[in-house]
């Protein structure tokens, strides 16, 4: 019974580290994967919007989310120490997402 009493606390104590682990930050590789994923997302959204496959409201929301992801990624990568090649790769990735967003903006603003 003493063991059972201890176990009553073992459950929250086991689950608590899991909860905290879920709140952890991103590594540069994870951030870059996310950036290239968002770039592909924006390309797909742009193509679908051109073909009238997505509503304007949704495309606008997606653009806003992607822009927010771009800003967060810039901030994250900017604060991390990266080797020269990695910094170049990161800049190119961020620029790709920026360019993709500009295309989507153009489609959304077009009459």
């Amino acid at each position, binding site marked *: 019974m003493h063991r059972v009493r201890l176990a009553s606390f073992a459950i929250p104590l086991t689950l608590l580290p899991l909860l905290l682990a879920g709140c952890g930050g991103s590594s540069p590789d994870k951030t870059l994967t*996310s950036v290239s994923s968002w770039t592909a997302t924006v390309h797909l959204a742009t193509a679908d919007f051109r073909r009238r496959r*997505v509503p304007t409201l*949704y495309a606008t929301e997606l653009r806003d989310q992607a822009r927010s992801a771009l800003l967060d990624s810039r901030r994250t990568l900017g604060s991390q120490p990266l080797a020269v090649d990695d910094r170049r790769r990161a800049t190119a990735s961020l620029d790709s997402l920026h360019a993709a967003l500009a295309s989507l903006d153009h489609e959304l603003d077009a009459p």
Partner: protein
Amino acid sequence: MKKWGELALGVVTSIGGFLEVGSIATSAQAGAEFGYQLAWALLLGTIGLAVLMEASGRLAAVSGRTYADLLRERFGIRFFMLPLVALLLVSFLVLASEIGGVSLALQFVTGVNLRWWALPVALLGWGLLWRGTFSAVEQGTAGLGLVALMFAVAAVKMHPQWGMLGRALLPSIPHHEPARYWYLVISILGASISPYLFVFYSAGAIEDGWSPEHLVVNKVTAGLGNLFGGGLAIAVLVVAALVLAPRHIRIDSYAQVPLMLSQPLGKAGVLLFAGTLFITCFGATVEIVLAMAYALAQGFGWPWSENLRPGKDSRFASSYTVFLFFAALIIVIGVDPLALTNISMVLTAASLPVTVVPLLVLMNDRTLLRRYVNGPFANTALVVLALMSVVVLVAALPLQLTGGG
């Protein structure tokens, strides 16, 4: 005739009831990152849930007692606190993510940020629970939940490779990112086999007045209903595999999920997705909060029933009111629904041992179940599930650290 009606209703409820914010997110992530490969995890989760729901339904129908009630009585207050605390903690997070799911659906169609929708959604759920009977709650979203069938339509329209999908129903080793692969397996299991589901199901059997005459209805509802529901989750995986995976799109935000439906379903895809998300997550919201209130009330011996006016079961009614309000606040303060879903699915999977193992013990108690105790097949299935749940508990933290999104 009435039994056939109950059967049909049970199956329909399960079809839409299987999908909710967790299963949609985990299935879509699995499809986007690993193609068809994780279909076996969905099948395993579906079968696991069917076995557990059938057991808890049989327990209630034969003994006339709910799972939470028997957990307290047979294992005592000291042990009971273990599954109770685990269930409340984990279900609270899942509840918040479901409210987030409904709010997201409203954001997709109105453009108004989901944080503004969380409290109104909680209020809507509360209103249904406060005024509605158990039948109203159970059946309210049953027929509407069939809108989730649009995932099946979308999957078929994408012309999947059926042979490859069939082979993916068998377990496989990942070709890349093993930590991420196994992390998603655990997430899928957590999304499919949620303890709140069988707490709710066994309480529902008592609310509906089930007896041993309902054992066939129970088997068909738990088995067929969940198989159809699991099929829908596999359809989500298939669509993500065919639309997102080839483009290397990983799901970092819920906003990316509707995009996978634009290819097969056009503009209607986004709207149908919003409708599905709204209905399935709303249904899950009321189920989860009721399960939490049932567990508390039954465990401590309070009056309880959705068919009683709140004045007759004040602590029960106050419990679901408080849980709904605070869960909505989590979304109001800006916690990301997808991040919340991801962590709560893993936590759910990790908490399974304390709810599955006691059920195994109860299902072999002849004083409760008489000749309806588990046979060798049911016992084998439950033992396998119990062992699997322990493995998941041990693996959850390392995989969250190495493979968590």
